[in-house]
């Protein structure tokens, strides 16, 4: 196959056309990926033409090329941000030494583990979301779902490229295993627990893209600092696409709230029953979904006190998001103080080595980022004249990993008795009744220019196209 053909088949900037061993590896893997996409990708729309963005190069023109394409024919490409000449390691114990263009033997297994764990989440979310097309609120949203899906697929490609190009036989085996594990499969589940829960309604989808994909953003930001240069450059490019996914989440939640406020204003009521009867979602229910998704996404950052995170930082494998914002990039003797849990189960100030606190530092940056959307939504609510405020629950609430795992904490962050916790948990999280109500709203709307009644229409289209453009051609 010629160089040109390769560029056509797998858009790339890694010189795939001349790298025979990489070609062989990817040719072996690509058919399996296509099978996986057909079996586990979006259900019922494989033959539809979808208006999608494809990355064909990393420059400002190339990263977003739009056009209609059938998803199985999507050109999943391999892109790394351009190389910075003479890039030096900028954190940990090896500051000032050149970054690595090959995997150092000592870090082979830990780097492989980082890449596999990151890679495993990408196809997982496609699998989790495969049924959502059946209940899309509009063609615009349907298209956004598929855009997110194909890009998660591309992110899988990006990780597989690293495994194939830098990790030899073990890397190839791991790349295959990424397709063999499936979300929710009892026998071969995805690595991280959150990625094994199916996402069956669009409220959860928007919450997932707002909260859980944002965890992905922070993981990528940490890896974008890596001293393993190909990993850093890959993640830097992925971040551009990840930002769009969060945009889908943020605008999705905004439009739900807008619709709710419209109904409240029309009916001049804040009665939950009245809002629900009018087919919109009351803000209290939205708050419960926020409580659920925020708290489960926090677990993805790992334990507050972590030896793995210290190892990854000290060795320059994984930095803090936006590492250059910090003053000390070694943090060898510095400490981190936070509110921890004492042996007597009270909240007490604890001081630990800074390097062991890297998960918590990343989590805090994430929380600050999450708050931006909340501020916007509360402004909207206030402007409509209502005195309701959406809030992020405490980072101690409902945790399954870390020092707060299994500790009974209220959304406000107070330690409470098990009895109180069990009694109130139903009121803090989506109830069966809430889920039934949300499911009752999930009816597919695919008419041009129409949007389901529980969510406001988007205020602008994709790539300057009209809102009424037929983003997905269903009749095929």
């Amino acid at each position: 196959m010629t160089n040109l053909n390769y560029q056509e088949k797998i858009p790339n900037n890694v010189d795939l056309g001349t790298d025979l061993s990489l070609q062989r590896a990817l040719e072996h893997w690509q058919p399996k990926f296509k099978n996986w996409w057909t079996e586990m990708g979006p259900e019922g729309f494989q033959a539809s033409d979808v208006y999608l963005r494809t990355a064909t190069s990393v420059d400002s023109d190339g990263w977003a090329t739009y056009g209609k394409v059938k998803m199985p024919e999507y050109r999943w490409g391999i892109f790394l941000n351009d190389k910075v000449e003479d890039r030096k390691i900028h954190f940990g114990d090896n500051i000032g030494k050149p970054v690595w263009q090959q995997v150092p033997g000592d870090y082979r297994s830990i780097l492989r583990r980082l890449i596999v764990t990151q890679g495993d989440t990408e196809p997982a979310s496609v699998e989790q979301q495969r049924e959502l097309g059946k209940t899309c609120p509009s063609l615009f949203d349907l298209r956004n779902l598929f855009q997110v899906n194909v890009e998660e697929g591309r992110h899988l490609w990006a990780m597989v490229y690293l495994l194939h190009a830098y990790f030899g036989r073990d890397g190839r085996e791991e790349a295959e295993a990424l397709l063999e594990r499936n979300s929710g499969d009892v026998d071969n589940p995805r690595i991280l627990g959150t990625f094994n829960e199916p996402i069956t309604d669009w409220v959860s989808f928007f919450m997932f893209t707002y909260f859980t994909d944002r965890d992905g953003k922070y993981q990528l930001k940490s890896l974008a600092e890596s001293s393993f240069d190909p990993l850093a450059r890959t993640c830097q490019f992925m971040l551009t696409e990840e930002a769009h996914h969060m945009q889908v989440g943020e605008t999705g939640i905004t439009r739900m709230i807008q619709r709710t406020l419209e109904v409240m204003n029309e009916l001049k009521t804040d009665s939950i029953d009245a809002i629900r009867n009018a087919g919109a979602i009351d803000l209290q229910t939205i708050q419960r979904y926020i409580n659920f998704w925020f708290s489960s996404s926090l677990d993805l950052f790992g334990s507050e006190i972590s030896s793995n995170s210290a190892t990854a930082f000290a060795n320059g494998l994984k930095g803090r998001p936006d590492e250059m914002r910090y003053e000390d990039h070694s943090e060898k003797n510095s400490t981190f103080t936070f509110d921890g849990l004492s042996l007597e189960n009270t909240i007490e100030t604890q001081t630990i080595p800074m390097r062991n606190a890297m998960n918590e530092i990343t989590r805090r940056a994430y929380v600050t980022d999450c708050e931006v959307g909340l501020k916007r939504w509360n402004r909207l609510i206030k402007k409509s004249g209502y005195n309701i405020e959406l809030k992020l629950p405490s980072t101690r609430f409902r945790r399954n990993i870390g020092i707060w795992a299994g500790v009974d904490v209220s959304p406000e962050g107070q330690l409470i008795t098990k009895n109180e916790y069990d009694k109130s948990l139903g009121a803090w999280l989506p109830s069966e009744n809430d889920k039934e109500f949300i499911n009752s709203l999930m009816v597919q709307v695919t008419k041009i220019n129409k949007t389901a009644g529980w969510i406001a229409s988007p205020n602008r289209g994709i790539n300057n196209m009209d809102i009424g453009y037929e983003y997905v051609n269903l009749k095929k």
Partner: protein
Amino acid sequence: MITFDREPDTYKHWKVDINENRATLFLDVSEKDGIKPGYDLKLNSYDLGVDIELNDIVQRIRFEHPKVKVVVITSNQEKNFSAGANIYMLGQSEHTWKVNFCKFTNETRNGFEDSSYTGSIKFIAAVNGICAGGGYEVALACDEILLVDDRSSTVSLPEVPLLGVLPGTGGVTRLIDKRKVRKDIADIFCTNADGVRGKKAVDWKLVDYIAPPSKFDDLINERVSKVTASVKLRNGENGIKLKALNRNITNEGIDYDTIKARINREDRIANIHIIGPKSVDVIDINEVIKMGSNWWALKFARELEDLILLLRTNELEVGVLTITSEGSTDDILSVTSILEDNKNVWFINEITGLLRRTLSRLDMSSRSIFTIIDNNSCFSGLLAELLFAADRTYMLNNSMSPENTKGPFITLSDINFISLEMVNGLSRLATRFNNDEPKLNALHKIVGKKLNAEEAFEEELITIIPDDLDWNEEIRLSVEERTSFSPDALTGLEANLRFPGKETCETKIFGRLTAWQNWIFNRPNAVSEKGALKLFGTGSRAKFDNKRV
């Protein structure tokens, strides 16, 4: 003070489910309940406290649940079987603590195999999540290892690449000796921190069977019923309740019903004084079962085990153990023959097993042992083992004494030839004579014969036989001399002299593996401020002294 006896309602780290002939042990380590402060027991990692409970659980199953034929060890934590010994605990511990911790955990693991090989319970590890280091070493001590094949659960021995130490609880030895993993595969396995999963783990003989999560319970059931069929001596109906030990700890010593121990810290000596069985203990087997944990032999075994563990852990500077006894030679011989005549009764098999393992603990105690036979002694039958466990024996020679020309006596019994084997697989007598068959045959001919000091000396069963005039001074001098030597040199000397002849998996674990591990535990590459064990978890890399020694 660290103690080793536990009651089931105090377990913090294990849940036990007993269902007919199967006991399932769920490991669920309570993070905040370490036996010492300073570390959290994350990821089902364990410390001495977790292992003390395991030892107690298995002991109680042996005696209190005689229907149980198979013990299944598994985890209650999702996706996580066990991360092994807690690294922070090892990192902060003194050398002596690490050694005693490893010794005790080794003995618990060996105890699984001891039971399995002698007709008692068998063990299956149902590895339902990540299983690393010491966690895998627990599995290696089981008869079978089942691994869930969920594409992420692995078994691994990451000690060398991650910590700069060895898998020191039998890991390396059982890999190549017991499971017969080829040495080059073992080399790859022991240097790869990631571990091996699924089919490859079976191909490499690291585990016996795999099944996907949905079929894992079926696999466990299938293997339990297969393994159950091979268990010979678990045929009891009613269990024997292990009552709490009657123990009194004072500043001067530790007293039980059958043992009074006196500790002289200034001279660094402890005297273990055994009170032999009485006529109430000489009864038929049905009466023995009725007496249960009050019967002398079981009580003695439990008390001796407890005492050895307490001395080891809490009296580090006591270097010489003198063992003395009082009682009737006839009664101890009668109690011994109850053990010999009822080998196929599950309860007797379990008592013999406990005696065997307890005497092995004594062999492994890193203390000089002098057994002293004076006028009131009853070192016959099973108590004669304490003569052969000793580094030296002193027997009072009364042949010149005007008053008492008859005793004291010792008498051999069958049990000294079979049933109480050391970790090298040989009886203490066979070890004493380096398996010299003509000599052992000759000794077997004098089973039941009362031997006085001169006769016993003639048969090479005793080291020194001072007469009544020299007796006290001779013993005082020997003990004082002993306590003046380097404790390290003595431990090394004794560990070498006590085990002549062939090697077994266990002698390799206690000899080769433990000795290397303890050397590594003392080296800067592991334990200096820049050593791998010390730095684990801080993120910093170890700075090695790269000279190969």
